[in-house]
């Protein structure tokens, strides 16, 4: 882990950064929820997710949905361990770039106050 962070070109793509930002705060998110929160189409989200999954930064699993009469499934998305680490490093690198700008400290996913936001 670098104190200055490590800039990650795959994560830095605007939509992928936002996807990682959402996934970093939870264990897993429903594909549809990520799509609606970001306001993008299924195809756009799938394309960027594929890049993250191919790079080993995210993963997806499908589960049956009892609430649906058809055979559609819920797709759960999550960051892998290396994905979480890469995202944290990338944020740290961005924060160094931000330098004198006032970015308020926020909490880590488990409650500890950090300055990495």
């Amino acid at each position, binding site marked *: 882990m670098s104190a200055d962070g490590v800039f990650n070109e795959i994560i*830095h793509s605007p939509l992928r950064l936002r996807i990682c930002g959402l996934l970093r*705060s939870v264990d897993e998110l*429903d594909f549809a929820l990520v799509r609606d*929160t970001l306001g993008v189409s299924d195809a756009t989200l799938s394309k960027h997710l594929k890049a993250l999954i191919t790079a080993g930064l995210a993963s997806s699993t499908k589960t049956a949905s009892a609430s649906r009469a058809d055979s559609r499934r819920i797709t759960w998305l999550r960051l892998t361990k290396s994905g979480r680490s890469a995202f944290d490093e990338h944020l740290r690198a*961005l924060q160094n770039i*931000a330098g004198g*700008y006032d970015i308020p400290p926020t909490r880590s996913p488990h409650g500890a106050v950090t300055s990495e936001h």
Partner: protein
Amino acid sequence: MENNMASDASGNPRLVSQVFDELQSDRERLAEHFRAPKWLAPGFGLIAAAYVSAPAFPGRQADDFVLIVALVACALLVSNYRRATGIKISRFGAREWAVFAASVLGSWGLLSVSLGLAAFGLQGWIVAPAFAAFALMTWLASLILSSMRERLRHVS
């Protein structure tokens, strides 16, 4: 604009700051989806009430049966809740753990009251601690869910 902003952000402190603002906005939108269904907290309250009222039923096996049913019901509630919100969060923060510990201790305390009432042959009065368990657990479950939503809103 968003694309330009993020792609240029690697060298511009002001744009980096805007990227962080956007990430924060996404988190706030996500937190709005974390609103628990209305049935969730009362569901945990009912489970606690059933657990506390177990001494009203005769036989040791009734206690074990109620406990097993309560644990299965908890698992089902959490599973349905995850499907309803589309969000899985399994880890608690310090505040959630404290409230959870309080709910366990509260349930045990009310169970001991029920056991005492049953020992004196006052099974009918067990409805009182059972009702208290329902109210207590509903309130504490609401606190935990509220705390998790706030934590979600502010994480980095």
